[in-house]
């Protein structure tokens, strides 16, 4: 009897917002819980194979997302947890993915455009602003924010680890992962002891 639950963690957000970074940490967190078979469909990688040749028109973008959703659905229904990390800028096609995939967790990786332009890890924003890249989401192409994502990550305010923790907590809440007691460093008693020590010393 296979009780293992498949699910899809669907990251959406502008280029450079942190989708890939956080998805890798989530993958590590799942592995730490003994879930070794996590598949990751990273947008940049998918475009070099599954969606090779597709461009960035709305139609091509929708096709790309539908293909990713198709694979995610196959994995999910066969009990394989998976993570999709693509910009997926259009709400309609994300909603399509949500309908197709049974256990769907939408994670909105939010980051203000001016922060992304400043960060510009891949150097793409500079090119897009200079007009060297057409149809660039956030600059010359629209991005439609999710209305009801399961998790919102604010990558300019949180560390990637904290963001990953939020996602794992949501997976627990939704029953995709068994709840484990918080693996804090201190037991309750120890924490009280340290707190008392620091209070006595005037630190708190």
């Amino acid at each position, binding site marked *: 009897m296979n009780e293992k639950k498949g699910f899809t963690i669907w990251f959406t957000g502008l280029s450079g917002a942190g989708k890939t970074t956080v998805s890798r940490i989530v993958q590590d967190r799942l592995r730490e819980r003994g879930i070794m078979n996590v598949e990751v469909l990273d947008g940049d990688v998918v475009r070099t194979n599954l969606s090779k040749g597709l461009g960035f028109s709305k139609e091509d973008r929708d096709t790309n997302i539908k293909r990713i959703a198709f694979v995610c659905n196959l994995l999910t229904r066969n009990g394989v947890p998976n993570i999709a990390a693509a910009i997926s800028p259009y709400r309609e096609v994300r909603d399509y993915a949500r309908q197709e995939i049974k256990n769907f967790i939408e994670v909105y990786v939010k980051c203000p455009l001016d922060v992304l332009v400043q960060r510009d890890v891949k150097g793409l924003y500079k090119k897009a602003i200079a007009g060297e890249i057409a149809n660039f989401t956030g600059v010359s192409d629209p991005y439609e924010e999710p209305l009801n994502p399961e998790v919102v990550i604010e990558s300019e305010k949180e*560390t990637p680890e*904290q963001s990953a923790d939020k996602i794992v907590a949501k997976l627990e809440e939704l029953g995709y992962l068994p709840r484990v007691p918080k693996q804090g460093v201190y037991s309750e008693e120890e924490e009280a002891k340290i707190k008392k020590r620091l209070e006595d010393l*005037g*630190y*708190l």
Partner: protein
Amino acid sequence: MAKNKKVLIIGLDCAAPGLIFDRWLDQLPNTKSLMERGIYGELESCIPPITVPAWTCMMTSKNPGKLGFYGFRNRSDYSYSGLSFATSNLVKEDAVWDILSRLGKRVVMVGIPQTYPPKPVNGYMITCFLTPDTKSQYTYPPDFRDEVEGLVGNYILDVDEFRTEDKDQLLREIYEMTEKRFKVAKHLIKTKEWDFFMMVEMGVDRIYHGFWKYCDPLHKKYEPNNRYENSILEYHKYLDQQIGEILSLIDDQTCVLIVSDHGAQRMEGGICVNEWLMREGYLTLLEKPAGIVPFGKAKIDWTRTLAWGEGGYYSRIFLNVKGREPQGVIEKAKYQQVREELKTKLEALEDGQGKNIGTRVLKPEDVYPVTNGIPPDLIVYFGNLRWRSVGSIGLNTIHTFENDTGPDDANHAEKGIFVLYDPGNGGTRKPSPLSGLRIYDIAPTVLHRLGVNVPSDMEGKIIQ
């Protein structure tokens, strides 16, 4: 500059330049000799100048905003009770010992704050006072504790019962802790192979906080010719003797540093931050507590509260923002305005006699290039750290001169100490004191001395 084979750091938590460099230098012959033959200067701490995050800032050369923690306890979410301890698990940046361990260099570490729980290193580690007790795993490797305990019996992580009125007992405990730590340190220096050795002695901080009023004629509670008048001096003389013994164990290839994470100054009193916020209309209670209670136990009317504050040697103020805190009331568009308003009012705070106390209010985004984790909304140094922050509710006053949760003798100060002596290079004598030294300079200086490339994201400079 020739490279050193080894670097040895003696960390003295809280050691104040005014006492060591000036007031008592002639009575500290070993320290004086290092200063005369090496370089020294005041070392500017991080913001805030508190043990956690300061030692980690020093040894990673990263600011608290980058590290993502701002004190011993930090908000882990935007709830009203989400403060969690900043243990070693929260340190995601490489410290000097991580870099050296990866390169196969051998490290020995004793008592460096924020190293509990212990992480593997290429060498030996005894954790710090944030370890619950010696029943916890306080060494790396785990069985190294047997060697420590074989040498000193019960190793002392920190003094117990700091708030005791029995000052003789407190002094005995501080000495016993320090004696054991130096005994272990000297043993390790002699018996282990190491390229990098670092110890941090907490006794300095403890004796300052517990005994400052006895030795500072300007302290409100100072009494001339009291029996503890020389307690801090005698302790410093004892430390100096221990430093001398360590110096006798090392060769001329070893560069020695003596550093502190921040300094100290007399404490004038406490500002009851939450009482003040209530008086100014920023904080509302559901019901008045019977007596004095910690803030966490008070019943707060969050729907009518704009801000609350944390106690400690400095204060952190948090705003109750709509869409961020569970029952936030400040509209996002009004956030900056409320902060500005608070800043202006806090900076106008006076002592009981109508004299402005010189409070400094800092905004995290102004002092840190990035603010990872959840920073406080305001960082407040009451009286530029001459006044502590009292978080409790029910004191019915803004100023207090009695204990609420902590001793009232000394507070932290921004400048600690830096001494570096390199015997192999004919000393490092340069006109000292040097100025402009920062806590972030220590890690790059250590790596450089050991001939290791300094990572480009370290924030400090190499002190030469």
